[in-house]
């Protein structure tokens, strides 16, 4: 009986959370086009998010490209298909691995940062102080951050893809004696419009989800300083889960278009 009621409470809380998050997203769409616009803060956030994530994306992208090529090479050699390496790595990185891995890194890096920052501002009454001073904190803090993640994530994804391809090309160059020019020519020949566009559109949604969840968790942070930690932690978990849901929906929709 106790377990059933706990389960029921958990399910109820889950749906309340989804409802609140949807309400928060609706408020974003309601206020995003209304003046005043905080362009200066938006640019600052874009710089902060892009700049701070750059090293992490570079290192991760390079290693992913390197490892993917090293792991696939023996199997492809076994089947005499090693010349397909650039095609396989290129398509898998651009369509799936690049966007998802970059988004997951940013969920850990950015969503937790936003959650902790806004949570701390809520707890120390900085958000209240902002409101009392006549500035709409939702516009200044939330809209700028969600816009910044939405705009910056596709750029980081494209950059991460290029770094990963470079890592892969390096392995092929050292182990397979394939020149960088030949490798990249083969990759770009293999890639089509239908590989790039869905991946880029998907990245915008990933960025939006990361910003939305980070802001939502931080903006409504409660229970003092402990709540700040909870906000940062749950922002990462929730954003990561949401990324996989969005990825599934994006792949499902793009599959329908491929079949048509």
């Amino acid at each position, binding site marked *: 009986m106790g377990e059933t009621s706990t389960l029921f409470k958990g399910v109820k809380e889950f749906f309340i959370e989804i409802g609140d998050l949807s309400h928060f997203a609706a408020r974003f769409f309601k206020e995003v086009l209304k003046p005043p616009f905080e362009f200066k803060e938006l640019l600052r956030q874009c710089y902060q998010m892009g700049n701070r994530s750059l090293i992490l994306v570079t290192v991760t992208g390079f290693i992913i490209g390197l490892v993917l090529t090293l792991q696939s090479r023996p199997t492809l050699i076994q089947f005499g298909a090693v010349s397909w390496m650039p095609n396989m790595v290129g398509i898998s990185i651009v369509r799936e691995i690049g966007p998802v891995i970059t988004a997951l890194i940013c969920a850990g890096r950015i969503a937790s940062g936003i959650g902790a920052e806004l949570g701390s501002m809520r707890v120390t009454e900085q958000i*209240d102080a902002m*409101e009392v001073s*006549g500035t709409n904190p939702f516009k200044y803090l939330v809209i700028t951050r969600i816009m910044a993640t939405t705009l910056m994530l596709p750029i980081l994804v494209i950059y991460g893809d290029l770094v990963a391809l470079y890592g892969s090309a390096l392995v092929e160059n050292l182990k397979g004696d394939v020149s960088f020019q030949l490798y990249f020519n083969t990759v770009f020949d293999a890639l089509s419009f239908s590989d790039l566009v869905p991946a880029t559109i998907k990245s915008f949604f990933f960025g939006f989800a990361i910003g939305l969840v980070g802001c939502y968790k931080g903006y409504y942070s409660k229970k003092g300083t402990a709540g700040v930690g909870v906000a940062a932690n749950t922002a990462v978990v929730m954003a990561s889960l949401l990324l996989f849901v969005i990825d599934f929906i994006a792949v499902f929709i793009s599959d329908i278009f491929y079949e048509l």
Partner: protein
Amino acid sequence: MSFNMTDQDQITNRSESAQGGKAVIEIKDLYKSFGDNHVLNGFNMTLMEGENLVVMGKSGSGKSVMIKCLVGLVKPDSGTVKVLGKEINSLDQQNLDELRSDIGFLFQGSALYDSMTVRENLEFPMRRHKEKLGVVADTEPLVREALENVGLAHTMDLMPVELSGGMKRRVALARTLILKPKVMLYDEPTSGLDPITSKEIIELMRSIQKKYGTSSLIITHDVDCARVISERMILLVDGINYAEGTYSQLSQSTDPKVDAFFKK
């Protein structure tokens, strides 16, 4: 008790005759609950022009909720809240923001923006109130003047993390003064400060009131602060204004609930 007040008209009449001024803040029958927790149960209060009014109450008695109702940060369940003649709950966002520029709010923990320098903290409220301040091309003289008023002009380019607790409180005070408010609201202005710094803050509050002629509402549970600064006091107990009078009147009370505040 002669100073027990439950009727708003009595409070208003007495205050008006005592001060001979007009009311800048009027609260009538204020109710606010959070779930089953009834925080305010018909609270009444009037702050007269140029007056220093202290509202005292235990932790969790609803003092901060009451003061946040005055600037529209908390919406009351019922009751009326008038500040400078305007009913807070009936104002649209633009008018509310305009009114807020006449209200200075010193938060309990100073609430300085961590990611901004002291200068940027002081410039921040000016962004939305350029009409009130006139066209200000260079904000530095205004920032410098506000910081000089609290004796911290040298901290202009420091980050809040580099300031002590007392300095943060003074910078926060300078930030509220930059818009030249008519009413000052202080939420526990001396909490978390040592006795010497507390004294400095209280002195600063008094000198600000003299210099700018502001009316002040001070929320505190610090009896020493109340003794030094108050012209009139209200004790907030069980969500109502349980007792009202001057410090000496209240401190001599034999009512156990009132006496509990003044026992050393």
